[in-house]
């Protein structure tokens, strides 16, 4: 091995302890299964290959190597560096060293490359060993790749991390508040639509990668889950946990997020990229996880924790050096592991676990998996929550720090956010105040709240704005009615409205001459007539629509055809047709009722039969939410992939998508 003997000894001891190798009489040997497991794996460290069954002595190999032409030596080194296998092309297999015409033949003739099967030649282990000067690898393997670091003020590291930590908590809260009101729907495949992710990104002023991370972290921390909207469509909703979470101090909330992130198998960094089949990954999709993610994060943090205080990863080269370091520590992880480590470092910076490329005290505690202590360490670094704002005459309110949750919520309702960061700038507009009134605030409450929350007197223009909005609020009222009643005779209208028999019609007087009803026109009209009124229907343009019973007429016959030959032929045809039909009917009745059909073509055939026969069938149908139900229907028409049928349960004609019909059987 190309390594320090003492270290090699240690490694061997370790292997023996793990029982991956054993002390055989002829020396230490690996367990037979180990070699099999190692073979063909990517990321193989050593170029060691099985030796020939009867290996020549090392001296012999060395002398053979010395005979080679430079071209053949180069070729051999190339084969060695690229896995120890190659193809020979046109090289002859059986040549003597003297006859060799090409570098490949030179090598084969000296058995420095051994033909295996087909065109393949392999490099025997002893040759490779000789080529590397008697070592298993060309590069030393016991030197841990060093981390590239620069020095940085620890206070700056802590402040940067605290700023990021504060930001991530604030953004998560904003996101979930938003989703609590307008939840995005869950895709059929279980993820979050790209469009919804873009909305989140815009809302939170982050890029889509950042948005994906926030969403995924919220999921890992158990703050969102799949739920259902009132109409049953699945949607991503904040959990009840969120309510508990949002009431906690910022540092604790942060610890919860970080805990979720650290232990989760989710891979937010893949969102937006494409998998092997070219399908792009959606955030929150169930497949978006990897068993290696957690290990990658913990390892990355542990490596980072190894950097002494006052030092941070160098800009540019730092991350790459961590990846190399981790690859040395875990040589047999698949290639994606390096990506996961890189992503973990990025995520740690966004989450405020690390800052400016180094770990602050709170981050070190996270690396030790002591989250409560990490939260306690972070707490003094966070901006103190404030309970007041500064109101200004340009109709803005500035909160000079993070607002207490309750105040922030209320202010959020009454004003629009103009700028975020350490402080928040709110702007009052007629629209934002109206939102407050819509939520049930009164002008007095708004003014009291503003006076209470402001450290300075409420500016006069703001008071005017509140009063102005209050004055116009609700000056136009909107409601729902099925029909209106208009009468110039106020007494007649009043009598109708107050008539006890009209109570079921839901009449309400809006003005002396106008009433509305919650009953539709076709119910209202006959009832009013029963009550002795003589209403006329008014069209949308205000004109009176007169209705009178339709006069019905049949279409007269158009001339008579001469009887005789024609009628005789028709009679014969009718006879024949009737006979055929009867035969069909008999056949039909004698055929046993088929069991439920399942293949689409069977279902289609069965449906066509039912249409032809005008029979009633039971179909199995999958609805929009994936639930299967059975419907009793009379199929009517089948075209364009849709079945139009009379649904007995709905008592109406319904359309069914044929591809969602799972089974058809006779009723």
């Amino acid at each position, binding site marked *: 091995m190309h390594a320090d003997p003492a270290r090699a000894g240690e490694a061997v001891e370790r292997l023996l302890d793990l029982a991956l190798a054993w002390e055989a009489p002829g020396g230490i040997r690996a367990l037979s299964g180990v070699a099999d497991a190692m073979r063909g794996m990517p990321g193989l460290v050593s170029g060691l290959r099985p030796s020939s069954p009867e290996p020549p002595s090392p001296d012999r190999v060395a002398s053979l190597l010395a005979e080679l032409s430079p071209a053949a030596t180069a070729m051999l080194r190339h084969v060695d560096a690229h896995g120890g296998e190659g193809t020979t092309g046109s090289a002859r297999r059986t040549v003597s060293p003297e006859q060799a015409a090409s570098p490949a033949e030179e090598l084969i003739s000296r058995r420095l490359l051994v033909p295996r099967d087909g065109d393949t030649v392999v490099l025997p282990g002893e040759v490779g060993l000789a080529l590397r000067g008697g070592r298993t690898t060309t590069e030393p393997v016991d030197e841990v790749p060093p981390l590239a670091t620069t020095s940085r003020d620890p206070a700056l590291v802590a402040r940067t991390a605290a700023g990021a930590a504060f930001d991530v908590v604030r953004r998560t809260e904003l996101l979930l508040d938003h989703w609590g009101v307008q939840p995005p729907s869950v895709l059929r495949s279980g993820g979050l639509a790209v469009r919804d992710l873009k909305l989140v990104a815009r809302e939170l002023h982050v890029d889509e990668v950042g948005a994906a991370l926030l969403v995924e972290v919220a999921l890992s921390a158990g703050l969102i889950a799949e739920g259902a909207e009132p109409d049953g469509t699945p949607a991503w909703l904040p959990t009840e946990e969120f309510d508990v979470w949002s009431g906690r101090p910022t540092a604790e909330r942060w610890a919860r997020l970080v805990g979720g992130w650290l232990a989760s198998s989710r891979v937010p960094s893949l969102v937006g990229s494409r998998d092997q089949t070219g399908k792009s990954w959606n955030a929150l999709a169930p497949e978006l996880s990897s068993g290696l993610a957690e290990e990658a994060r913990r390892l990355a943090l542990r490596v980072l924790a190894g950097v002494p205080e006052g030092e941070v990863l160098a800009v540019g080269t730092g991350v790459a050096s961590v990846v190399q370091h981790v690859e040395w520590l875990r040589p047999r992880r698949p290639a994606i592991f390096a990506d996961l480590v890189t992503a973990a470092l990025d995520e740690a910076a966004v989450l405020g676990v690390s800052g400016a490329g180094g770990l602050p005290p709170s981050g070190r505690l996270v690396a030790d998996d002591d989250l409560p202590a990490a939260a306690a360490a972070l707490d003094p670094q966070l901006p103190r929550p404030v309970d007041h704002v500064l109101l*200004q*005459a340009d109709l*803005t309110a500035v909160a000079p720090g993070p607002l207490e949750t309750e105040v922030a919520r209320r202010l959020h309702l009454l004003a629009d956010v103009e*700028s*975020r960061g*350490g*402080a928040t700038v709110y702007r009052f507009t007629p629209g934002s105040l109206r939102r407050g009134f819509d939520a049930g605030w009164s002008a007095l409450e708004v003014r009291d709240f503003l006076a209470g929350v402001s450290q300075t007197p409420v*500016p006069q223009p703001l008071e005017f704005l509140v009063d102005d909005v209050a004055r116009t609020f609700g000056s136009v009222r909107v409601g729902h009615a099925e029909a209106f009643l208009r009468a110039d005779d106020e007494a007649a209208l009043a009598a109708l409205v107050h008539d006890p028999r009209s109570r079921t019609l839901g009449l309400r007087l809006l003005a002396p001459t106008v009433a509305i009803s919650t009953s539709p026109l076709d119910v209202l009209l006959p009832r009013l007539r029963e009550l002795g009124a003589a209403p006329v229907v008014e069209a949308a343009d205000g004109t009176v629509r007169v209705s009178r019973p339709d006069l019905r007429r049949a279409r007269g016959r158009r001339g008579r055809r001469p009887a005789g030959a024609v009628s005789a032929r028709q009679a014969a045809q009718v006879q024949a047709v009737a006979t055929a039909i009867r035969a069909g009917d008999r056949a039909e009745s004698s055929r046993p009722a088929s069991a439920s059909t399942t293949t689409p073509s069977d279902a289609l055939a069965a449906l066509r039969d039912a249409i032809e026969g005008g029979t009633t069938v039971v179909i199995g149908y999958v609805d929009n939410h994936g639930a299967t139900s059975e419907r009793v229907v009379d199929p009517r028409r089948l075209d364009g992939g849709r079945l139009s049928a009379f649904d007995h349960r709905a008592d109406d004609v319904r359309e069914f998508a044929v591809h969602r019909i799972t089974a058809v059987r006779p009723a």
Partner: protein
Amino acid sequence: MNDGPLIVQSDKTLLLEVDHPSAAEARKAIAPFAELERSPEHIHTYRLTPLGLWNARAAGHDAEQVVDALLTWSRYAVPHALLVDVAETMGRYGRLRLEKHPVHGLVLSSTDRPVLEEVLRAKKIAGMVGARLDDDSVAVHPSERGNLKQALLKLGWPAEDFAGYVDGEAHAIDLAEDGWTLRPYQREAAQSFWDGGSGVVVLPCGAGKTIVGAASMAQAQATTLILVTNTVSARQWKDELVARTSLTPDEIGEYSGAVKEIRPVTIATYQVLTTKRKGVYPHLDLLDARDWGLIVYDEVHLLPAPIFRMTADLQARRRLGLTATLVREDGREGEVFSLIGPKRYDAPWKDIEAQGYIAPADCVEVRVTLPDGERLAYATSDPDTRYRLASCTHAKIDVVRDLVRQHANQPTLVIGQYIDQLDEVAEMLDAPVIKGETPVKERQRLFNAFRSGEIGLLVVSKVANFSIDLPSAEVAIQISGSFGSRQEEAQRLGRLLRPKTEGRSAHFYTIVSRDTVDADFAQNRQRFLAEQGYAYRIIDAGDLTAEPT
């Protein structure tokens, strides 16, 4: 955690808490590179923009200073991305330099070869530069100096101009400081302009921009071309220069629609320069008529686009821009930066006011309610006539009368947009009107009479908006105004901000119809004034009589 007065937001705004004990220091530290956006009573908002950072760079500040100022005064952690962005943006200025080469004339050179390669590859630049002299420099045709600077700014690599200026034809000009002296900030402004070579001086209306111009001319000691917005203001410049400098009326020429004189000091209007006949600008020759040593642009924020193009050819002459605001409604701030020069001096209005040079103004919005009949007419009218209906309501006339009565002994201006309404008001108040059709001579007579106190009340249409010095006005009543532009507001307030004799405060009334588009525009005005830090009150027309003066 730091207890600084500054909060750095992630959207590149800086919030400064004014009442904080170290607010003044922090303001001084950030003022060179951040643009003051709003200055209401408690928290001032500054914004970091590339132009602002480049202006700071041009004034000799470097990225380290900026980052240090932010970190020192910030209360919370400064977003890392923002610091990186600041450093990167500032690093872009000055990588390219325009220099005078003893052999090749004007050259564009760079200390950073890839940058030079990058810009030379841009299609727009390729046509403006000549032969490649060596790896780090390329020849530039002198006539492309302005265009090149403009194009480079658009590419995000603004060039520093070290190519110097022509001295121009010498002409003796001295300040005649008899009975008055240059105010400290005026001296400072003129000095920093001169040290910087070319650039813009930002001073509020009434802070004496004309004097800064005169002081700069005295520095230059050379023939000067002054470009102003209109004829009336041209005459004012002339009067002021005669009064404040050693120049005699014979040495100052006016070049306008009416008179075309070219003298050692020539004052031309933007309008005459931009007049186009048969596709050419016939008066463009003026720019080369003499070997000007200094070109002064009054009200840079109104500089019309054609003048920009002409200015591009004048890069070898010293250029002084004077303005109250760098904000241009057309967003061409970048062209001012590259063609006239970076900001050389800036003093926030409130600071100068606090120094006692400008009277504080009391801004009041008076709300009138439309009578029922007019309200109905308003509600059913077309959107394009609504504004006129709302602003011309008769209810306003009564309010004007009440206000004029309240301020009976103070010189008062009534400002409006609609001629009919102005005529009606003038008739009711028995006061003279100045409108578009009033001849210049008559206008001047009226303005002079107002200034001397002969007339105590003047009704003016929009024409009075720009650059007319009516320092004696103490009360302005705005009855209608076009669509709430910020500039117009600044100008109107400017009328009143000129220094007052007895330190009395000026009053600025706007009369607004409640619940109409008029009120919506008033909202913009209110925001603008409040952002400028003015106290703003709203009163109901009904309460007006109870209001103490």
